[in-house]
């Protein structure tokens, strides 16, 4: 490297290396005020017609599917969910694992990318965290209600009861109760604490009245003083550091539900990492599915740029390939184990009556993301949306394959059955999709969908030494224009 000493010989042309400028995270040199106006505008302005067109049907679907479906279930008994055969869990646990998995991308974006200093997360983390909360709510419905008499759900908690029976702490199902409820609580704290400064921004923009009062209550009197920021930053770091192992543990524990049982097709050590990669994979697809349209509707293209979308597409490619590796490794382990039951389970998956589910899983999860090797595909929003939808569907099929094809051929041939879910079960699942969308729409209407404070922090002028740098071009940011000019003049 040529060192630039002030005494360098003028006659000797100094070798200048081209400096790759860091890609701007926020485009068009937007000001702090522009960011505030644009993000707060989403919830302060009247919602576009499209908002109502999405909210009303999804709220109705949620009401009929979840509200009506569960009322009917509680009123009549779990028989209406088809709990009459060996594939008891089929549909409901598929949906539970599906929704829990969706949530994981939110925590990954907010915690893991925070710890690894990936500043591009700031534009998408709030929406992804909201998605986590809503997905876990949807997930919780299935195990809570499929146990039967839901008013006994408190038996899950280790509380003394009249039967003098205690929970089995050696069971992965109890671990699951702790893991999922901890996950929900911590995600909620993380989401809420991250939102406090932004709620204060909204509070300060409101006219006095009920609205200002309510935002004021939730902003807790935040003032943005550095004596607050200092502790706040530490709290955020700690929550990120706590959430990272938590998110890995949650899906690992979910996978233990399967992996610790002595059932061919489930009893494998690859399950925990395989489930976690799959969860991140499916979650990122869901983030894209909701953020790409939202960015258009609310004109957030300068905040959620093609760079953000490109990064997410690359993560989908990476995790999709890990998932593909896990699928193949499962087959290899089944073959290499020499266990006939294990081999049979996988033969049944691939070529049995559920071959279509296996084929859908393989093509949608492993093949479709391979398009993201090509830059043109990562830049085309239609391709991105198509692949994201493929992955959403494919990840649902993955859980269906794992759960249903295994339970339909357990040890006793007398239990063998071709499974199909009941109408009420299907209705409830469609209802949770409505619930998820309706909650997300309400989130867009009432809460800041992008982290205002953190986005401001990523602007170049937010560095306290930004003004000093302009006097020393070699301090770190080399001016691209000056470099180009020099190139031209040297010719």
């Amino acid at each position, binding site marked *: 490297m040529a060192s630039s000493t002030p005494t360098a010989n003028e006659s000797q042309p100094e070798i200048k290396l081209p400096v790759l400028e860091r890609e701007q995270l926020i485009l068009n040199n937007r000001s*702090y*005020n522009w960011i*505030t106006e644009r993000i707060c505008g989403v919830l302060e302005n009247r919602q576009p017609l499209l908002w109502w067109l999405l909210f009303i049907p999804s709220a109705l679907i949620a009401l009929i599917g979840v509200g009506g479906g569960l009322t009917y279930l509680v009123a009549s008994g779990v028989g209406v969910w088809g709990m009459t055969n060996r594939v008891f869990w089929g549909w409901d646990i598929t949906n539970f694992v599906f929704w829990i998995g969706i949530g994981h991308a939110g925590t990954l974006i907010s915690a893991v990318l925070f710890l690894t200093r990936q500043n591009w997360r700031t534009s998408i983390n709030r929406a992804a965290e909201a998605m986590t909360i809503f997905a876990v709510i949807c997930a919780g419905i299935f195990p809570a209600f499929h146990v039967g008499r839901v008013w006994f759900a408190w038996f899950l908690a*280790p509380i003394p009861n009249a039967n*003098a029976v*205690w*929970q*089995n*702490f*050696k*069971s*992965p199902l*109890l*671990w699951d109760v*702790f*893991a999922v409820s*901890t996950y929900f*609580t*911590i995600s909620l*704290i*993380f989401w809420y*604490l991250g939102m406090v*400064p932004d709620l*204060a*921004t909204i*509070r*300060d*923009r409101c006219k006095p009245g009920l609205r200002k009062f309510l935002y004021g209550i939730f902003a*807790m*009197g*935040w*003032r*943005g*003083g*550095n*004596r*607050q*920021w*200092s*502790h*706040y*930053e*530490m*709290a955020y770091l*700690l929550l990120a550091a*706590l959430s990272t*192992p*938590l998110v890995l*543990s949650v899906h690992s*524990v979910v996978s*233990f539900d399967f992996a610790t049982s002595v059932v061919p097709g489930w009893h494998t050590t690859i399950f925990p990492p395989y489930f976690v990669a799959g969860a991140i994979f499916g979650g990122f697809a869901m983030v894209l599915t909701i953020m790409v349209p939202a960015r258009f509707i609310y004109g957030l293209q300068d905040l959620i740029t093609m760079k953000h979308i490109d990064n997410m597409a690359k993560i989908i490619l990476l995790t999709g390939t890990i998932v593909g590796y896990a699928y193949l490794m499962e087959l290899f382990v089944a073959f290499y184990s020499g266990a006939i039951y294990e081999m049979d389970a996988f033969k049944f998956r691939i070529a049995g009556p559920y071959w279509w589910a296996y084929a859908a899983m393989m093509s949608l999860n492993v093949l479709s993301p391979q398009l993201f090797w090509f830059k043109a595909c990562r830049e085309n929003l239609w391709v991105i949306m198509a692949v994201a939808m493929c992955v959403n569907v494919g990840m649902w099929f993955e859980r269906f394959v794992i759960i249903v094809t295994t339970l339909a051929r357990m040890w006793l041939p007398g239990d063998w059955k071709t499974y199909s879910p009941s109408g009420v079960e299907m209705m409830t699942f469609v209802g949770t999709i409505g619930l998820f969308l309706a909650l997300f729409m309400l989130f867009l209407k009432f809460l800041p969908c992008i982290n205002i*404070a953190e986005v*401001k*922090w990523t602007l170049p002028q*937010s*560095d*306290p*030494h*930004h*003004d000093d740098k302009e006097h020393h071009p070699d301090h770190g940011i080399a001016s691209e224009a000056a470099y180009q000019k020099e190139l031209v003049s040297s010719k």
Partner: protein
Amino acid sequence: MSTTRKRVYGYLAEFKSASALYKAAEKIRDSGFRKWDCYSPYPIHGLDGAMGMKRSILPWFVFFGGMTGTATAFALAYSTQVVIYPTIVQAKPANIFTIPAFFPVMFELTILFSGFTVLFGLLALIQLPRLNHPLFASKQFHRATDDGFFIAIEARDPKFNPEKTRSLLAEIGGDNIELVEEEDA
């Protein structure tokens, strides 16, 4: 004329950028003030040093909070599985050697208790929630959550002086210097 008595909270001055705020903070720190703060719409990295602040002690709270969680989970699992209601399932013994099976719950409760300690420890350290604050009476302070950079020096600081503090703020580049008053309750 108003008859309510007012109490002076302190001076509020605006600075034009994060850099200006950073340099001003260094000067106020060196003048020996204690009861003052810098307000900005986002956390400015390095300002802790410029203000002469120590690292947050929150991690210590969280460490003990987390350990409480681990201990609680172990106590819960051990007392129910070994002492009160021993059952032999999955061929696991009903004694202390079952502990590996308790690890997942111990881990989860460690995280859960740590998370709650982060939340409540933070609120205790930053003395929130509170319903009002004298600074909210200022006409310009609402910009601190939008695009304004402010420094407020409180009147209860021993070095506070109505004239000298004002001229110090003006000297180090403060604009719109305002005397913030609160209504005496």
